[in-house]
């Protein structure tokens, strides 16, 4: 009894546990500045740049969600286009009923979250590959059902009937700000989720599912939560897609290419890290813009790079950066400071065990 207390006292005296090696306040301030600068973009850059940025927001929001699914919950979904399409169609449906399209966006996102529940019930008992294709079949089924409504444009789609009466520049700027807001909410939600108790369960699943289960982690519940959150996020991205293109076509919004794009962005950036999707989206947009005149080449190159990274650098570009520089913009793990450690190399034995994953418990 005394011995235990002594040990605890001693370790409290010698070991220190922080969220990050560096002060988080700086990252927070930096993120705030970045968001403010991004918010000012419509005033300072050309509208061509803003419309590229809207695409980036769409991809980044989706990538955050796919990262939660595949990177943390171990759910490789190839059917996220179901939610992209549903989000877009919710906006179309509400817009037809005279609800302004920007107001329809959050409703559409929530609607997708509700729709995720029955879909989860259908696929929840499947694992790995079976889950992957079953979600794909679900997306195809959802598209076929949506196409049965003539009021929603059947198989050819429909333009949004009630677009705000703004000039093209102002409309684009509004879309941009909404897109920025959606992306920030997606990133903050991901961060908070992973920082909290659910994050602990998810990180445990990511590292070793069997160990997580045997430690009593509620794996099924955490997975359902992630699936619903990913439904909301992908739905919001789909709603954004509808708002930015002002037209909803079933074959475009339900295309499996959306899942390919979000997955490739995450894998290239770094699966299972919050920063990965951001980096991956940048790579995606740069490649897409440079190879824009070569049709599908950017997808081929992205696919090949993603395959190589999945095989040879599992934690993606951010993993490589993290391994060498120990930077983490969104610290969700813990950093153990060994007794008497100085500014550098503050890894205790526990940190040493976590070395494989970048030197800390994340």
């Amino acid at each position, binding site marked *: 009894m005394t011995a235990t207390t002594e040990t605890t006292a001693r370790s409290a005296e010698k070991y220190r546990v922080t969220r990050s090696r560096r002060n988080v306040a700086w990252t927070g301030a930096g993120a705030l500045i970045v968001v403010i600068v991004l918010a000012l973009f419509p005033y300072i850059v050309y509208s061509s740049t803003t419309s590229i940025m809207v695409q980036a927001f769409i991809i980044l929001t989706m990538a955050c969600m796919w990262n939660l699914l595949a990177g943390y919950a171990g759910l*490789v979904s190839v059917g996220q286009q179901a939610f992209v399409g549903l989000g877009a169609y919710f906006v179309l449906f509400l817009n037809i009923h005279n609800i302004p399209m920007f107001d329809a966006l959050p409703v559409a996102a929530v609607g997708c979250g509700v729709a995720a529940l029955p879909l989860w019930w259908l696929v929840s008992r499947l694992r790995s590959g079976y889950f992957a294709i*079953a979600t794909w079949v679900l997306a195809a089924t959802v598209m076929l059902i949506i196409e049965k409504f003539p009021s929603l444009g059947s198989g050819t789609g429909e333009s949004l009937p009630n677009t705000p009466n703004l000039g093209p520049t102002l409309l684009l700027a509004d879309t941009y700000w909404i897109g920025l807001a959606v992306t920030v909410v997606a990133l903050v939600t991901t961060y908070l989720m992973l920082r909290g108790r659910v994050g602990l369960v998810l990180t445990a699943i990511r590292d070793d599912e069997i160990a997580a289960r045997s430690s009593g982690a509620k794996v099924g519940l955490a997975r359902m939560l992630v699936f619903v959150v990913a439904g909301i996020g992908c739905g919001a991205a789909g709603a954004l897609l509808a708002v930015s293109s002002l037209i909803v076509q079933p074959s475009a919004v339900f295309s499996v290419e959306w899942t390919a794009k979000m997955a490739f962005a995450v894998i290239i950036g770094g699966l299972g890290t919050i920063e990965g999707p951001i980096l991956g989206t940048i790579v995606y947009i740069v490649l897409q813009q440079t190879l824009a005149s070569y049709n599908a080449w950017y997808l081929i190159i992205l696919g090949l790079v993603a395959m190589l990274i999945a*095989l040879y650098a599992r934690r993606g570009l951010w993993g490589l950066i993290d391994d060498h520089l120990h930077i983490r913009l969104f610290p969700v793990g813990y950093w153990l400071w060994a007794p008497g450690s100085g500014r550098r190399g503050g890894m205790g034995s526990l940190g040493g065990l976590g070395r494989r994953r970048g030197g800390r418990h994340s």
Partner: protein
Amino acid sequence: MQWVNDIIQGILTGGLYALFACGLSLLFGVMKVINLAHGDLAVIGGYVALGVIAVTHVPVLWSFLIVVPIMAVLGYALQRTVIQAALNRSILTTLIVTFGLSVVIENGLLQFASANSHSLGVNNSIITSSFSIGSQIQVAYLLLLILVVAVVVILGLQYFLSASRYGRLIRAVADDQEAAQMSGVDYRHVFGIAAAIAFGTVALAGIASGLTSQFSPTTGTDTILLFAFAAVVIGGIGSLWGTLLGGIVLGVAQQIGSQINSSDGFLAGYIVFLAVLILRPQGLTGRRAQS
């Protein structure tokens, strides 16, 4: 009478779907992973057949004699390199890599072979004609031939797995990889052989798809992969006869669906798939879920 016709047509189409599915079923049985590039590889088989016919002028129906070995070699090579490397890491990596492969193949075909549809036309009049049973039922020789081929392929695979040396090795590795390895089996080579056989059936599926309808770069994911998967799940995971049954159930469901409303065939097929997923997740022939 109309319903009888639907069921017969459905059974005939089911043979095609079973042919799509048996490679997927075999590889899952052996390696416990799903190849998300399955459908696109079948489409590659179709394009290879087009090329082989253009170069050698073999009759379309006999093109499989060349296409199947080509695809089998491709399968062995792909398995020993990319897929094995992914398997060595994790199931997640395998899914990501095969999904990447699927997107790369599809867009590569779009880039190099355009989005145009192709078909493998047969000029042989016996094959393109049909015979009738009664007044309303028409049976196309081609679909009948494909159903027969599917049954022969499944019989052949069953015999191969149960009686031949390599079949025993494949089953041994599938049952317990480590024990097989300790007995001196090179599991990577065995996986390669299994992949070669699976790709051979994929080549047949590609040719059959080109014979019955048209194919384009997107056919692989739009139809072949999803139908193959639906057939495997409906029939029961890991059973080849189950796969044939699943293909037939899917085919009949699609026929009856399109009878009710001409555009609802696919939807009816998927609804049956989802119903099986909910009510009998182990499939029609399966004893317990292996998910």
